């Protein structure tokens, strides 16, 4: 390893250590102030633990479905392996074990600080939670394989990829969103501790649903059952699906050679200015790609509870609108960033655009318009509904979401890096600075919106901070550095 390589390695290790310490600090604050877990094992604690495990399981299952789907559809070395004397059953078993290990390591990365801190606060018995996390990850992979296999059988290889990834995302968000809906129905607001909802909805302490929680407390029977369940489920699923893997992978690989999708009617030329043509193209590509659409709109799933609450508030008194503004603003920033990446970086024919007789600024303007119109289509109904309930909050939301979407779009311009649209999921790893800046910008504008709705001038503070942050990000961005002097 070179000296530079070693230095980078040390920096990465130091960064990782700092991140782990940060997570431990976060876990300590959360556990000591919010949950009040003492290890008594009473009904309330069981419910809280079960809720945490359900939340973790939905995230693991979502990740596992993504990974299992990729295992079926990824070409890479698959064709080489499928044509080699290696049995596909063994290949599948190895890949699934690798997926389980990945899911487990990711889960442990985020669960370990909480387990460690709880063990610090409540005693060593909490370390049994590690075994439960291992069992949960195995169970998640097993369930993921079952779901993907069922999708293959039910809707065929062509649709399984998109549907599976949509289902994965919905599962990932479902539990958190479900809690919000339950909170709204139960308490009329989302701003209550989620565990209170769980306590109200939870079954009795001897219910099987609470066995995972009992396993966390180190109850031998529950722990043995849960670990056994994970191992047996994963082994059984591998045993059943491994012999079929080759056939399913070949079916997935044959998708691109299958029947083509044909328009029902002959397309007529509509004629357009370059800007119109660019906008129309962006919208067509987005609307026609269900996977991309799902990925882009996934963050909007979290708006559903807010929309539901807003709908309910139509039929009751107002007063709930104040906390909706920041949610709308934050979501608009995230959606704007996603759409802007697709329009700016995710251009599949960059050379066509670059060789067209259209000035670069006009191209950027047309693409920005396409992004902002997309954001407007999604948020206009919500803002209009909000206007009927709380006009001032609607005005703040309108300004805030426009600025948030515009900021996210600007960040995407500054950090644009040409990529295929299908690489949308990798956009967050292509530039960490852009990713963090986008998140900070959305959250900052949301904070400013939250304060503005209450009528305080303090709203200016987060606004100025975001502007300063954006200026700093622009200063270090490739767009400024490569601009001609």
């Amino acid at each position, binding site marked *: 390893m070179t000296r530079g390589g070693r230095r980078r390695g040390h920096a990465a290790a130091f960064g990782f250590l700092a991140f782990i310490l940060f997570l431990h600090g976060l876990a300590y604050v959360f556990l000591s102030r919010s949950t009040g877990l003492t290890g008594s094992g009473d009904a309330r604690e069981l419910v809280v633990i079960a809720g945490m495990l359900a939340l973790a399981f939905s995230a693991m299952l979502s990740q596992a479905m993504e990974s299992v789907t990729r295992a079926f559809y990824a070409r890479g070395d698959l064709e080489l392996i499928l044509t080699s004397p290696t049995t596909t059953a063994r290949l599948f078993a190895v890949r699934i074990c690798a997926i389980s290990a990945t899911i487990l390591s990711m889960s442990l990365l985020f669960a370990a600080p909480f387990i460690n801190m709880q063990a610090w606060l409540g005693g060593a018995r909490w370390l049994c939670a590690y075994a439960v996390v291992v069992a949960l990850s195995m169970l998640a992979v097993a369930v993921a394989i079952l779901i993907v296999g069922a999708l293959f059988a039910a809707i065929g290889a062509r649709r399984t990829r998109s549907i599976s990834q949509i289902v994965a995302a919905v599962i990932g968000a479902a539990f958190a969103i479900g809690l919000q809906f339950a909170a709204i129905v139960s308490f009329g607001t989302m701003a209550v501790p989620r565990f209170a909802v769980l306590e109200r909805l939870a079954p009795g302490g001897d219910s099987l649903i609470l066995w995972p929680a009992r396993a966390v407390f180190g109850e031998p029977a529950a722990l043995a059952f849960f670990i056994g369940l994970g191992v047996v489920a994963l082994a059984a699923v591998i045993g059943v699906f491994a012999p079929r893997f080759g056939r399913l992978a070949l079916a997935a690989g044959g998708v691109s050679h299958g029947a083509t999708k044909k328009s029902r009617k002959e397309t007529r*030329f509509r004629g*357009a200015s370059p800007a119109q043509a660019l906008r129309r193209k962006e919208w*067509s590509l987005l609307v026609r790609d269900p996977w991309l659409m799902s990925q882009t709109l996934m963050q909007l799933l979290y708006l559903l509870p807010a929309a539901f609450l807003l709908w309910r508030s139509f039929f009751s008194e107002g007063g709930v609108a104040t906390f909706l503004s920041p949610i709308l603003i934050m979501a608009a920033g995230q959606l704007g960033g996603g759409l802007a990446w697709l329009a700016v970086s995710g251009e599949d024919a960059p050379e066509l655009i670059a060789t067209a007789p259209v000035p670069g600024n006009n191209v950027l303007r047309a693409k920005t318009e396409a992004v902002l119109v997309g954001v407007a289509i999604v948020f206009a109904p919500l803002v209009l509904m909000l206007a009927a309930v709380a006009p001032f909050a609607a005005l703040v939301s309108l300004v805030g979401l426009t600025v948030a979407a515009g900021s996210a779009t600007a960040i995407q311009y500054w950090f644009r890096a040409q990529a295929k649209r299908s690489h949308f999921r990798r956009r967050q790893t292509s530039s960490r600075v852009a990713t963090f800046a986008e998140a900070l910008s959305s959250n900052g504008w949301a904070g400013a919106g939250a304060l503005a709705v209450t009528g305080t001038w303090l709203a200016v503070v987060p606004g100025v901070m975001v502007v300063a942050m954006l200026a700093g990000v622009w200063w270090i961005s490739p767009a400024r550095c490569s601009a001609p002097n």
Partner: protein
Amino acid sequence: MSFDFHQTNNRAAAALARRSGGVGMNDKSSPLALRIRGLAKSFERPAVDGLDLCVPAGEFYSLLGPNGAGKTTTMRMVAGLLAPDRGSISIFGVDALADPIGAKRIMAWVSDEPMLYDQLTPTEYLDFVAGLWGVEAKLAEARARELLSWLGLAPHADERCAQFSKGMRQKLALAGALVHEPRLIILDEPFTGLDAGSSRVVKDVLRERVRAGCSVIMTTHILEVAERMADRIGVMSKGRLIADGRLDELRVRAGSGDASLEDTFLALVAQDRVAA
């Protein structure tokens, strides 16, 4: 409906010339489709090193060279995809560096890796391209239908490109390059990965375009194609043009008698290496 390419070409070119401020098709005084002077571009080492090149209007010109000779870099600079370090590029009298939009109006670029939108149909793709070049809808539609028919893509005109083979994608990219009736078409390795049938179709379309007065510049490693199709051939090595002319002129220069273009090309490159 029969579509007269030649007439439409003239109409479109006249319209293009009007849009580009009178510089273009009506600039009959310019006999050169492309004039390059002292063009240079370096990355970590010089890729194009003081290149001078002229391509007369209405000519099929093939640019050859070993890997890394600077062919693609040169063509990308002409197409406006790369900024040169120094030098000048003139396309039908339009200074491509001072007036890139004017130059792009009368030029088309087709790369070796066709870049399409998987979720658009060929018709929609051509509609989009026509929109970028500001071609009137009726005219563009007539051209597009004719091109799709010529290229054997008419049965697939309303299918999305996601399922298209390499050959179909390359033919559609070519249709996109032709739908706005460019006066200069630049193709970078257009026959890579094409089957015999698709290659024949592409060659026929390019020949027809040259007959209609269009100029074509093509880089290729398939020397048989250059030998059969090109009016003149240029050979690049180490960023410079080491030979330029008709095949018989290159043979004389290489001292290769009646040898094939392949032997002539290899002899020219070997001479350059020895001279260096």
